[in-house]
């Protein structure tokens, strides 16, 4: 066994990383296709406020992040559906609001700033067994849900009104997609960090969409690119002592640039 896997924290990081690396592009594909990828960053910032609340109240921060991001995800969908304000404006407001609330909560109780840093940029050492108990089953649930509702999600992404007319429960499925996005974002924070999670949902998908010959192929390629970034990023983080989130996102950007240049040279 390679040295890296003799450390139990690295085994936990890899298990979490593989789950996150699979579900982030799965959800990200539908968000990018719908031009709604800013939701990932918004929920990342909201999750940070949830994390801060969890640390303040001494509750598992992933649980509070899940509650905060799911609540806001449903709120965003309601705002988008009722068109009180434009979806993009709502996302921008909630993105800043989430960060502001996180800062206020941090200010209320000093002493957990170092721990919070790992939630901002991701860390390989912080994934606990309790985290895995949340990450693995919820990650599998995301995969099952997307598999079951794949055709409906694609139908809505393609033409929301047409999907309604064909009898698809569009409102329910839109909320479901937002909740699955919130779950994906909250679970990813341990490894990627709240400030970088949006990148893992968007960059591998954008890379894949440049070369894919179908929607399904794009989804599969996005998962391959994402897993490659996550696994390489975790190795880089371990051997070069770099922050995990930053390493993963830089590698995914390198894959994007190489793919782009490769396609352009054809």
């Amino acid at each position, binding site marked *: 066994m390679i040295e890296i896997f003799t450390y139990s924290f690295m085994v936990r990081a890899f298990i979490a990383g593989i789950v996150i690396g699979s579900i982030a592009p799965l959800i990200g594909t539908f968000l*990018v*296709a*719908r*031009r709604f990828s800013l939701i990932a960053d918004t929920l990342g910032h909201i999750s940070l406020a949830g994390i801060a609340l969890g640390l303040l109240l001494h509750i598992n921060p992933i649980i509070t992040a899940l509650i905060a991001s799911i609540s806001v995800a449903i709120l965003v969908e309601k705002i988008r559906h009722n068109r009180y304000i434009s979806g993009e404006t709502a996302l921008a407001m909630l993105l800043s609001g989430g960060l502001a609330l996180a800062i206020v909560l941090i200010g209320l109780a000093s002493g957990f700033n170092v721990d919070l840093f790992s939630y901002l940029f991701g860390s390989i050492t912080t994934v606990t067994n309790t985290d895995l108990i949340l990450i693995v089953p919820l990650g599998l649930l995301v995969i099952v849900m997307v598999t079951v509702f794949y*055709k409906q999600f*694609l*139908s809505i*992404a*393609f*033409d*929301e*009104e*047409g999907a*309604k*007319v*064909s*009898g698809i429960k569009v409102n329910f499925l839109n909320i479901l997609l937002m909740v699955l996005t919130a779950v994906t974002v909250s679970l990813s924070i341990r490894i990627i960090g709240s400030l970088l999670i949006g990148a893992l949902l968007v960059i591998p998908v954008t890379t894949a*969409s440049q070369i*894919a*010959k*179908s*929607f*399904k*192929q*794009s989804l599969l390629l996005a998962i391959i690119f994402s897993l490659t970034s996550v696994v390489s990023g975790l190795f880089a983080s371990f051997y070069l002592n770099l922050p995990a989130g930053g390493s993963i996102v830089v590698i995914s950007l390198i894959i994007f640039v190489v793919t782009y240049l490769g396609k352009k040279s054809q």
Partner: protein
Amino acid sequence: MHTHIEQSDQPLVCLHDISFSYDGQPVLEDIDLHIEKGEYLGLLGPNGSGKSTLLKIILGLLSPIKGQVELFGTPLDKFTNWHKVGYIPQKATQLDSRFPITVKEVVGLNATDKTKVSEALAKVGMEKFSHRLIHELSGGQQQRVFIAKALAGGPELLLLDEPTVGIDSESQKEFYSLLENLHRSGLTIVLVSHDTEDIVREVSRIICVNKRLVCHVTPKEFIAGNYYDQLYGDDRKTIIHHHSHD
């Protein structure tokens, strides 16, 4: 408890006294309309006349402030046979224009199996393009794929909202020829357009809307009745409702 039995001779669409307003501004007022099986209807009106709104009310995408809609003899809120209705909106897709999706995948969204996809593509003459990406096709070819998508569900009623916008004139001709063939094969078609000339030439009946129902006539009656001026001229108050049948 009432049961709604669908009968073959009943209108496919019944609108009773429909009114709709947006932000307090009336968009449609007192619309009564029947669409019979086998009709090829053109829904005409100037920009902002409420014709797209009327289509969306028929489909249940918008709720009227007054009146009732029936589809295939069933009140809209109880209607479940949505496979009988095909719809092509003005903007047929919101998908990011560069995102890869094949013709086969698009048509498959409304189909229950692969055979239905092949059949629908054959009907619109696009079977050779099944593996092509949508964004690689011309506007006219894309429109054919959107029709195939609607046909894949096996509809009896097809509603199209401004389908020829942005399509070159040669493709428009082919498009109208395709619709004519579909109509001949038994499909009821409602075509929303502001392109009066084409509509008058192509359809079997014309409905004119300008907030109210201005006319429901044959193309010949439309030309003879000088409805064009009433629709697009200065005087938009005329409300005439003919129900002459061929």
